[in-house]
């Protein structure tokens, strides 16, 4: 009888594992199969051939170079800020935490469109300052691409390094001072060695994010003919002559690079990070700053914010309001007409909004339910099975989304006869669910870890059955995690570009593809009006979420 109940307990686990293998592992395996199989035969030679084609070799070099340069530039931007916001009087300005998340939360394709509008020939900068004519020659280069991508990704590095610096107790520095080390020596002997591990992890993550990024290379990179992994995978999969084999080969290589980076990241975390957080709470003393240093710091913060937020948002908003772009920024040349056109000129804009909203709500809801079930199954599993299930469910976060999407395309094409989901909105929901499932998993898991075991034990002792305990204690306590996961999924799905541009059914536009299409071959101003609305809507949603969470804390 005992064995029977043991098997019965495993049923949900087995069902969920099978589902995840079907949704995540099968598409990935299809890619690898497609890469090494040509005309039904195993041919590794073709893979090598593809990689050796001069354009592909150059592209791989491009991607790696871009990754390295973005790591360097975003470090240069982020490290001084991290120090300012952790160990000087600037730490008290908590609102900067939110302000500096704006560049990271802005969809990269929108930010890079803003930069293009700002810097291009006769663009906004040259209208404001005619003397800057010719600047486009400097901007539409690899340097410009690196700058725009760094300005997007640096908040990530900033947050990581700021937290790492906050975790170094001042007592460590003070004891070094007591034993005779000056400021420079303390920085070199205590501060930096304690941070190397964290920095290495941050740098690796920025690298992976950069080579997996599609939005900026697809908009700005395209203008300067700088091909990278993501754009080439996209091209082979969408532009004639379509060659899924090559697309799959490049995707496999990209996955290989990313997984290697993750492994390296894991290794460094285990070997070179220090557990500095004690239960006693860490006291952080602040470095004193004189007037000059304070002024320089303010200027630095202002310049970074101007570049990271000011330029893209100024361009996007002003372009959406300009009547005739030929006349530029002049009094009387402003109008709300583009916003009205968005809704009235044709049904496309409204449909795109409807589609995005429908996709975001449905995928966020499915993720919330599925993700919560998975976390519960993982936590109830006593065997190694749970670890495997968790690893699979988090896989989509480690793999560039474009790769997973190609896999889903190939896999669902193969089984079209059995499950005709391909080319419908259904496949988009499915793809979003696969891509964004890790958000729910992570938020719900972290909510679970905050529930002390004795809260559940108390429920048992005071007579609650397991379903009663789940309903009255566990569920209310993880609800915050579930809601946060839902909202994050909603926001990110609402503006998702690469999935939509690859597997949206014909003639189905969502907000992101609508913006890109208007930007490239329609009315730039209408496209930017849509971008403004999209950012406004998602930011409001995020603020409401934050407010709701704060309120719950009481």
């Amino acid at each position, binding site marked *: 009888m005992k064995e029977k109940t043991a098997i019965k307990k495993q049923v949900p686990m087995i069902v969920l594992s099978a589902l995840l293998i079907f949704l995540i592992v099968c598409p990935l395996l299809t890619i690898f199969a497609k890469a090494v199989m040509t005309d039904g035969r195993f041919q590794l030679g073709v893979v090598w051939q593809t990689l050796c084609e001069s354009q592909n070799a150059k592209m791989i070099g491009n991607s790696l170079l871009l990754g390295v340069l973005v790591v360097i530039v975003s470090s240069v931007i982020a490290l001084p800020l991290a120090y300012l916001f952790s160990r000087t009087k600037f730490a008290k300005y908590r609102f900067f935490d939110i302000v500096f998340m704006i560049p990271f939360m802005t969809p990269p394709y929108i930010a890079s469109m803003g930069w293009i509008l700002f810097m291009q020939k006769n663009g906004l900068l040259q209208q404001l300052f005619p003397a800057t004519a010719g600047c486009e020659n400097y901007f539409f280069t690899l340097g410009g691409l690196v700058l725009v991508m760094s300005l997007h990704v640096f908040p990530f590095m900033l947050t990581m390094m700021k937290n790492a610096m906050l975790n170094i107790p001042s007592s460590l520095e003070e004891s070094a001072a007591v034993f005779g080390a000056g400021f420079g020596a303390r920085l070199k002997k205590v501060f930096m060695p304690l941070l190397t591990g964290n920095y290495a992890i941050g740098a690796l993550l920025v690298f992976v994010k950069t080579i997996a990024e599609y939005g900026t290379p697809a908009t700005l990179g395209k203008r300067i003919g700088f091909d990278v992994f993501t754009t080439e995978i996209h091209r082979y999969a969408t532009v004639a002559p379509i060659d899924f084999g090559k697309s799959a080969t490049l995707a496999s290589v990209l996955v290989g690079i990313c997984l290697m980076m993750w492994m390296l990241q894991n290794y460094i975390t285990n070997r070179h990070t220090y557990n500095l957080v004690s239960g006693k709470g860490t006291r952080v003393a602040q470095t004193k700053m004189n007037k000059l240093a304070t002024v320089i710091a303010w200027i630095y913060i202002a310049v970074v914010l101007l570049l990271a937020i000011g330029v893209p948002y100024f361009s996007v908003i002003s372009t959406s309001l300009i009547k005739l772009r030929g006349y530029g920024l002049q009094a009387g040349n402003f109008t709300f007409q583009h916003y009205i056109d968005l809704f009235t000129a044709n049904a496309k804009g409204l449909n795109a909004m409807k589609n995005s909203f429908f996709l975001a709500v449905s995928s966020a809801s499915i993720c919330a339910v599925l993700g919560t079930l998975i976390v519960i199954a993982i936590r109830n599993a006593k065997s190694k099975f749970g670890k495997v299930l968790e690893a699979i469910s988090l896989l989509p976060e480690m793999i560039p989304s474009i790769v997973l999407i190609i896999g889903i395309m190939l896999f669902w094409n193969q089984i079209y006869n059995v499950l005709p989901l391909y080319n419908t909105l259904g496949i988009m929901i499915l793809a979003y669910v696969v891509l964004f499932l890790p958000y729910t998993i992570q938020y719900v898991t972290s909510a679970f870890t905050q529930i*002390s075991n*004795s*809260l559940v*034990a*108390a*429920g*048992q*002792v*005071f*007579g*609650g*059955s397991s379903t*009663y305990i789940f309903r*009255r*204690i566990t569920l*209310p*306590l993880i609800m915050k995690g579930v809601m946060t996961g839902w909202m994050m999924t909603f926001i990110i799905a609402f503006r998702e570009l690469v999935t939509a541009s690859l597997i949206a059914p014909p003639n189905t536009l969502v907000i992101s593809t609508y913006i890109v299409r208007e930007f490239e071959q329609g009315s730039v101003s209408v496209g930017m009006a849509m971008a403004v609305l999209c950012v406004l809507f998602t930011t409001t949603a995020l603020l409401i979420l934050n407010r709701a969470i704060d309120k719950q804390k*009481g």
Partner: protein
Amino acid sequence: MQIRLTNITKSFGEKNVIDDVSLSIDSGSFTTLLGASGCGKTTLLRMIAGLETPDTGEIWFGDKCIFSSEKKINIPPEMRGLGFVFQDFALWPHMTVFENVAFGLRAANNTENLESKVMEALRAVQLKDFAKRYPHQLSGGQQQRVAFARAIVIEPECILFDEPLSALDALLREEMRTELKELMSKLKITAVFVTHDQTEAMSMSDKIAVMHAGVVDQYEEPEEVYAHPSTEFVAKFVGSSNWIDEHQMFRPEKASLTPSSDGKKFDVEVLSTQFLGNAYEGKMKYKDQIWSYVTSSKMKTGEKVSLYLNEKDIVRV
């Protein structure tokens, strides 16, 4: 309700946490499981509650068997009808004080006069004005009281306490000690109390079970445990002890500096003295043992003194 444990064992992997423990807890008594951390006292308590499952043995509540490895009986915790006060209080943070206390009644569908029962329990712990608050809006001592109220409201025959006072500061701990003891004797509920604090154990208990390495070393009244420790561990763990040799010891306050007729004489050398406020505590050297002895006057380091002790005050273990 009498609680009987017979031949309970439990091991986690290779380690024996509970090693053949048998214990009978009298109905209505206040019984303490005392021991250092890792001795198995909390595990034993959680077994009574049903939160841990013994490997072998039986547990009886009165004449009802609630666990037996042989007969394959294991009543789940929610059916045992006990009260439990957790070390970290374990108040549900998303429920008000009222709802926390009402949980046990609601879970058992015992909602008749719910409001008045809950308020009665809150009144007993002097918290009736705090019903609408959330746990995080209360101080540590108030949270502790809510945990008591939650345990008494279901009118259990027995309440289990897992180091409930250890999360409080010293002053509050002493206050709650008295309050808790009074409350329990007023309600006539059997109490099983786990602690590592010997003062707490001695001041509150009718009986103390001193545990060591998964075994109950001694199970008697506090006075007996102090005066006649049955093992070396109990002698050392409860109160302070001066050792004459490997098997003979005495409690420091039994010795005297003035000679008595039938007293044994011990010559010792003063190593150091410490001022305690109301007295001085001296560390003294006797052969290769270090003794402690409290006096009203200060002694010089290096001074040679004699201690006198009645034969009957020497304890052999």
